[in-house]
């Protein structure tokens, strides 16, 4: 009864109320449909319900009528059962799998390149040993050099021998007289054909190795023996026991073009930078000087660019870094035993490593970031360091006396060392050479036939 009053008044306006027709009145308005099962039908929408029951079936295709939840359910179902009119296709050729660069247990696609390089097999022993009799066991000399034409020059006593690395043949270049000898330094010119020989009597001879003849003798530069040589194009720099360093232009008659004064004792280490702009010199006075060509000389006596006094022993080992400009590595002698790194531009010491043994020579690896040092007492070893971490990568032993002289092949793979134990050893420490040498293997005495000349 109350329901009737709930109806909007507009419905009742046009109707007179008859007591008996009360029920009929209510029935006219569908919202007033009451029965004992559902007392209150106001919440029901009969129009819609009727529609859904009769025509609702066809309305399934009409998405507007379907409730959102029903639609989502239908979609989910279709997707799960693939009843949609959909085909799922994938490309037949799969994309390439990424190569793993980070460490993982699965070794199937492990990138071998990086690991192969770090695990380069460094032979612990020399690949070849040659006899080097009468090699002068003097720390301050530089008796070994490997030229760009792949010919190695070694000074044994008063003679200079050339060993052709491509075929292993030996030849004698010159034997000098006893009065002017022994030979105190050898150095190949950049062209690999001309060679400079420094002598005990302070002279320097210039030879053409191809024609096997002497070209000239440089005299009057030093007062005592010439223990170190370095080439810079046509300039031959000579370092003497008198502490003087002289730049000689070998093309002109009066060859002395510049004098560097600064060392108080013998100049045993002499190296031009790869750019040819700076010269590093190490002396028995424990001092390293860096000279710069761009510093103009007024009276041909030039002031040094830097004077580095950190070492406490003679500095013979000097090496310019091939991959980082202005980086110089130096090694100190028996009382110092350190390898120091310098910024040649500013003169500051970047790093200092105690090696525990006299450093006789230093060589940079041209292909990798590595440094090789040769030592004396007690191990007489060659140590390969990783740069810049200075982690020891390898220690090569074999020499029985201090490894005074070290040089590397033009291809940068092999290192040759000579020591007072009168052996010349070859080490494949910088990598395997691409071309195998046709020379006979491990011939302990290839110098034998030359030896008999004496």
């Amino acid at each position, binding site marked *: 009864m109350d329901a009737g009053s709930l109806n909007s008044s507009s419905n009742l306006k046009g109707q007179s109320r008859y007591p008996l027709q009360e029920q009929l009145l209510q029935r006219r308005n569908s919202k007033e449909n009451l029965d004992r099962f559902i007392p209150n039908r106001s919440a029901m929408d009969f129009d819609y319900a009727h529609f859904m029951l009769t025509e609702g079936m066809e309305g399934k295709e009409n998405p507007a009528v379907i409730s959102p939840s029903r639609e989502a359910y239908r979609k989910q179902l279709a*997707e799960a059962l*693939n009843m949609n*009119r*959909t*085909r*799922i*296709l*994938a*490309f*037949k*050729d*799969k*994309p*390439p*799998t*990424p*190569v*793993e*660069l980070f460490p*993982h247990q*699965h070794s199937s696609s492990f990138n071998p390149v990086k690991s192969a390089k770090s695990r380069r097999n460094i032979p612990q022993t020399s690949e070849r040993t040659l006899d080097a009799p009468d090699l002068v066991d003097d720390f301050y000399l530089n008796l070994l050099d490997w030229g760009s034409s792949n010919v190695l020059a070694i000074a044994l006593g008063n003679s200079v021998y050339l060993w052709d690395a491509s075929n292993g043949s030996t030849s004698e270049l010159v034997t000098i007289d006893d009065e002017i000898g022994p030979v105190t330094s050898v150095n190949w010119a950049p062209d690999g054909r001309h060679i400079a020989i420094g002598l005990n009597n302070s002279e320097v001879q210039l030879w053409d190795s191809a024609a096997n003849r002497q070209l000239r003798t440089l005299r009057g530069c030093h007062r005592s023996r010439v223990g170190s040589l370095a080439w810079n194009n046509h300039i031959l720099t000579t370092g003497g026991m008198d502490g003087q360093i002289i730049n000689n232009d070998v093309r002109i008659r009066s060859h002395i073009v510049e004098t560097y004064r600064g060392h108080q004792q013998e100049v045993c280490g002499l190296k031009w930078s790869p750019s040819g702009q700076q010269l590093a010199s190490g002396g028995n006075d424990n001092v390293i000087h860096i000279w710069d060509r761009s510093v103009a000389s007024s009276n041909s006596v030039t002031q040094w660019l830097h004077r580095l006094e950190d070492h406490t022993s003679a500095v013979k080992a000097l090496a310019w870094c091939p991959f980082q400009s202005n980086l110089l590595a130096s090694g100190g002698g028996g009382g110092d035993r350190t390898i120091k790194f310098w910024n040649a531009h500013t003169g500051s010491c970047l790093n200092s490593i105690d090696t525990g043994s006299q450093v006789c020579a230093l060589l940079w690896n041209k292909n990798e970031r590595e440094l090789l040092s040769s030592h004396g007492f007690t191990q007489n070893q060659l140590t390969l360091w990783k740069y810049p971490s200075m982690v020891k990568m390898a220690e090569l032993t074999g020499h029985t006396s201090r490894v005074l002289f070290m040089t590397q092949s033009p291809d940068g793979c092999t290192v040759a060392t000579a020591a007072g134990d009168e052996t010349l050893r070859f080490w494949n420490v910088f990598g395997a050479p691409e071309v195998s040498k046709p020379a006979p293997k491990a011939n302990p005495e290839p110098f034998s036939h030359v030896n008999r000349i004496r």
Partner: protein
Amino acid sequence: MVSRTVAKDIITLRGSAAIVSEFFGYAANSILYNRGVYPEESFVKVKKYGLPMLLTQDDGVKSFISNLNAQLSEWLEAGKLQRVVLVIMSKATGEVLERWNFSIETDNEVVEKGVSREKSDKEIMREIQAIMRQIASSITYLPCLDEPCVFDVLAYTDKDVAVPFTWIESDAKLIANPQMVKLHSFDTKIHKVDTLVSYKNDDEWEEQ
């Protein structure tokens, strides 16, 4: 493709298909870079959509994506493509870790009658740019892919499509109980592309 009118450009079915497939190429590259499927060094920067987009240099991946795009273009022009899904799976177990779902709604009238629509190119670029930005920023909430992964692309097409011989039928590669994030969509008035990424529920996080 478009004639420069005052504000809106005319977009044909072919043009729209090109936009969508090009979008997919760049989006796929971006996903591969951001999710670390391929090493970062193998990607190079190019300018696209006004953003620095990264494209892979790996020849295998490049040819895969370009072949894919050619086919997608074809399907888009025919109005048969419903969605493209880029799936990232673990290399070791083959389990699906991520699903990048690009649903495509095609205006069938255009396909049937060959009419063209009008929409500003810039507007479309802006919309695509928004999606690209979202893909790049997705790494903030997507779980880390610690293990090496591989990817694959699925195309949902109409059933009446002839399967080209370089494609095979595949399963849907769904993720069980995925977390889903809906990204922006873009509309060329002919094709409307919705982006959704679903990823494996990270068990470490508390389920809410």
